[in-house]
């Protein structure tokens, strides 16, 4: 806050000292009195003015500057509650330089003030990054002028603040990481608290040489340029632009992203999530056509799919506005539980428990007949929109990836378009079904009931599969066995002699399902946990003490916060071992599949003998795990990041989503050979 003494010389230049009237203390007293009088009024209304105490810009926006190991300069603002910074008013310049230097600005939040329009703002915290390359181009200046501007909510806007900050020297860690010193393997010690506390399951006794070593880490810690929690551990250099959608966007821009999402959509159309749409669409077409209309079927199903895609697009917009990690929210116990209950209800409806339809108020609106008995295009589109909402929560990797990308970058346009494309892709088979089905499918009859029963079991399976993420393994196995045996019964396994060929085939399928159900029961009796390998306990019993092909590699550390990860990486670097950082979560179904199919593979286990496996457990959505994911540019589990012995991420080694043994081996190999 400027003092009178400092301002005086300024004033003398425009005000005649003789005529200058001094308000000074008397006015001040009145002002104080005013301050005391009106606060109550101010508080009671929405536009407080007199009672507000103003923070100086430096108090409202605390700036910290740090030099990263890769030479980037980061500016971080801590923003006082009730204040915000205009993201786009952040400007950096070299002193004396005319041009502004380009900054990578952290995504902001959209703020829409009436009469002012939408602006990107930072609340709570903001961050800008000046890349090493930009600094270089600017002639490696010793200091940088950084200008920023913000407001107090519903109150005032501060004039821009400009601070001249000295550019810190490149941290030592960057140099140290390039040539890591060899150290003797550390003595065994117990896992530190942060690594054990939230480990998802009891870890097998770790091998001594795989333990994180604290002394070695201290050296890196001491050289850390930014002790600030959100920075990447000092010695680690990540491959830039490793993000999922970022990478797509880099490769071919907007069109490529859209094309990719359309492709994902087509693939997703064959997942059980989309199955409920077929009967709904059949209903639309069934009532929409008057006997033969293939064209009508095409038009109606296209309208349906457009409605569906629009709903997905809007979901993208919602993600951008909420800025939340939707995948984590949707994968929570509550969401998963609710979804599996929805599938149970759908199944009940298929078995004839009740008629599946949207609330009658909607359907009567949507299916207004125009008096012809035909559905209108509008109603088909409306039903498409509504059914997207029904199956929308069925989150799959590309959908979650897109939502996360949008939430993180606030790029509404690209995100919404990508999800729209995803919805269109999902709709392609629906259009084929709607067009061809209108001609080829027989009219409603007994077959419909059989299809319904089939779908009923598919839905029960979905409910079971979803619930398996949140139920104890024994319950999952028991329910699975019940489901399989019931399906076998319905398929006619236990009835009299087969009357026809289809009935015989059904009975064969029933036998297979029943066999699996019985295996589940056996597994249950032997304490198996994995419904896909119910007899695993048998295998391990036959070869006691020997890690069979099913034994997953033992992680060097399981971490849940940045400090733990930093230690674990430091420990690996200290022993010149590359690392494979595995972002995983209990609720991540693909991760479990990878555990079984990829990590248990003998070749991967062997390759991991020469590398540290660090598991990052993001099961719990905590500030620490969110920060870890943000720092490492991880969209969601499963993500594999490979670091060389010098803690550098070799280009194009990162694996996102479901992956294969050969890809993991290739990335591990790159990490081994890279420096």
């Amino acid at each position: 806050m400027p003092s009178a003494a400092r301002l005086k010389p300024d004033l003398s230049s425009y005000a005649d000292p003789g005529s200058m009237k001094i308000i000074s203390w008397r006015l001040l007293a009145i002002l104080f009195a005013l301050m005391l009088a009106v606060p109550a009024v101010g508080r009671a209304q929405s536009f407080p003015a007199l009672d507000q105490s103003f923070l100086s810009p430096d108090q409202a926006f605390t700036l910290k500057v740090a030099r990263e190991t890769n030479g980037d300069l980061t500016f971080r603002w801590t923003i006082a509650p009730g204040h915000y910074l205009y993201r786009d008013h952040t400007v950096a310049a070299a002193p004396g330089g005319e041009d502004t230097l380009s900054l990578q600005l952290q995504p902001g939040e959209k703020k829409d003030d009436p009469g002012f329009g939408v602006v990107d703002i930072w609340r709570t915290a903001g961050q800008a990054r000046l890349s090493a390359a930009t600094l270089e181009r600017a002639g490696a200046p010793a200091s940088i002028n950084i200008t920023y501007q913000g407001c107090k909510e519903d109150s005032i806007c501060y004039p821009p603040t400009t601070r001249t900050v000295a550019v810190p020297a490149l941290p030592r860690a960057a140099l140290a990481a390039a040539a890591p010193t060899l150290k003797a393997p550390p003595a065994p010690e117990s896992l530190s608290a942060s690594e054990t506390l939230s480990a998802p399951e009891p870890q097998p006794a770790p091998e001594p040489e795989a333990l994180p070593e604290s002394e070695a880490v201290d050296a890196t810690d001491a050289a850390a340029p930014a002790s600030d929690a959100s920075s990447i551990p000092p010695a680690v250099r990540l491959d830039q632009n490793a993000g999922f959608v970022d990478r797509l966007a880099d490769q071919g821009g907007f069109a490529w992203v859209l094309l990719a999402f359309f492709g994902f959509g087509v693939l997703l159309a064959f997942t059980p999530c989309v199955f409920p749409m077929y009967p709904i669409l059949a209903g639309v077409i069934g009532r929409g056509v008057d006997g033969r209309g293939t064209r009508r079927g095409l038009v109606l199903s296209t309208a349906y799919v457009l409605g569906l895609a629009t709903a997905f697009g809007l979901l993208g917009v919602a993600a951008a506005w909420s800025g939340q990690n939707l995948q984590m929210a949707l994968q929570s116990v509550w969401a998963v539980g609710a979804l599996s209950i929805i599938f149970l209800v759908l199944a009940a409806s298929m078995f004839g428990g009740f008629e599946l339809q949207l609330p009658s108020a909607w359907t009567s609106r949507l299916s207004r007949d125009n008096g012809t008995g035909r559905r209108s295009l509008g109603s088909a589109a409306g039903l498409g929109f509504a059914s997207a909402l029904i199956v929308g929560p069925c989150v799959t990797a590309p959908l979650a990836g897109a939502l996360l990308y949008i939430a993180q970058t606030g790029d509404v346009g690209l995100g919404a378009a990508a999800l729209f494309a995803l919805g269109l892709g999902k709709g392609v088979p629906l259009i084929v079904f709607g067009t061809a089905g209108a001609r080829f499918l027989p009219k409603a009859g007994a077959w419909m009931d059989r299809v319904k029963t089939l779908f009923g079991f598919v839905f029960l399976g979905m409910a079971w599969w979803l619930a398996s993420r949140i139920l104890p393994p024994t319950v999952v196995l028991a329910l699975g066995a019940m489901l399989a045996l019931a399906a076998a019964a319905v398929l006619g396994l236990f009835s009299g002699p087969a009357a026809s060929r289809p009935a015989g085939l059904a009975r064969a399928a029933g036998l297979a399902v029943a066999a699996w159900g019985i295996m589940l029961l056996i597994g249950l009796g032997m304490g198996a946990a994995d419904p896909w390998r119910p007899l695993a306990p048998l295998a391990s019993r036959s070869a006691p003490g020997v890690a069979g092909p099913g034994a997953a590699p033992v992680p060097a550390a399981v971490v849940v916060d940045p400090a733990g990860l930093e230690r674990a990486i430091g420990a690996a670097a200290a022993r010149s071992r590359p690392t494979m950082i595995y972002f995983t979560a209990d609720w991540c179904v693909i991760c479990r599949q990878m555990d079984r199919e990829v990590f248990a593979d003998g070749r991967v286990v062997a390759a991991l003998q020469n590398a540290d496996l660090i598991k990052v457990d993001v099961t719990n959505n905590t500030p620490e795990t969110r920060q870890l994911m943000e720092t490492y540019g991880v969209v969601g589990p499963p993500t594999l990041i490979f670091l060389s012995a010098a803690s550098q991420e070799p280009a194009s080694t990162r694996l996102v989503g479901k992956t294969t043994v050969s890809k993991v081996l290739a990335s591990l190999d790159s990490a081994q050979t890279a420096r």
Partner: protein
Amino acid sequence: MNKPALALMLAATMSLAACGPADAAQDMPMIAEVGFSDLLKNPATPFIGAEQADITIIGFMDYNCPYCKMMIPELNGLMEADPKVRVLYKEWPIFGAVSENLARIALAAGYQDKYHAVHNAFMSAPDRIQTNQKARQLATEAGVDMEQLDRDLAAHREEIDAVLLLNSREAAALALNGTPAFVINGNLIPGGMPQAQLEAVIARIRSGQPLR
């Protein structure tokens, strides 16, 4: 007194009691040695509102500051309701080059007696004004002769520079935190408030009560 008003007063009293008077005074800006009459000396822009006013409100404003824009209807409402209030706007552009250019256009429009037309056009723009082109378009729509304006901008450049410099120095001297800020008959009101509150403050000033 009706019930809502009573409830409001009760809430107000309670919040006052809960908060205590001390903290309100703490962060008060120091009023540097600048007199109220100095603020009114040789105003660069015409007053609006009452001819015979006993209340003068000086507003430090930026056309691209959202809370300034929100205050314009409140002040217009006040002047409509109170025949003895006048307002003097001081251009204090703090939102960069475009804001400064807006202020220059408004001040230059003053030479063809269009200051308020431009001021209102800028303040009531539905969105923030992000380009000089948009600014010129709004000025044209407000009835400004743009050729004349360009001549005035060039011919009176030094005067306009001086006004902007003076305003920013006054703002610094008053230790204003930002825009909007008001001085009502010598009382600094840092930030906006709705018309009803403005009226309450003015009533106290008029009745000579200490403002408490």
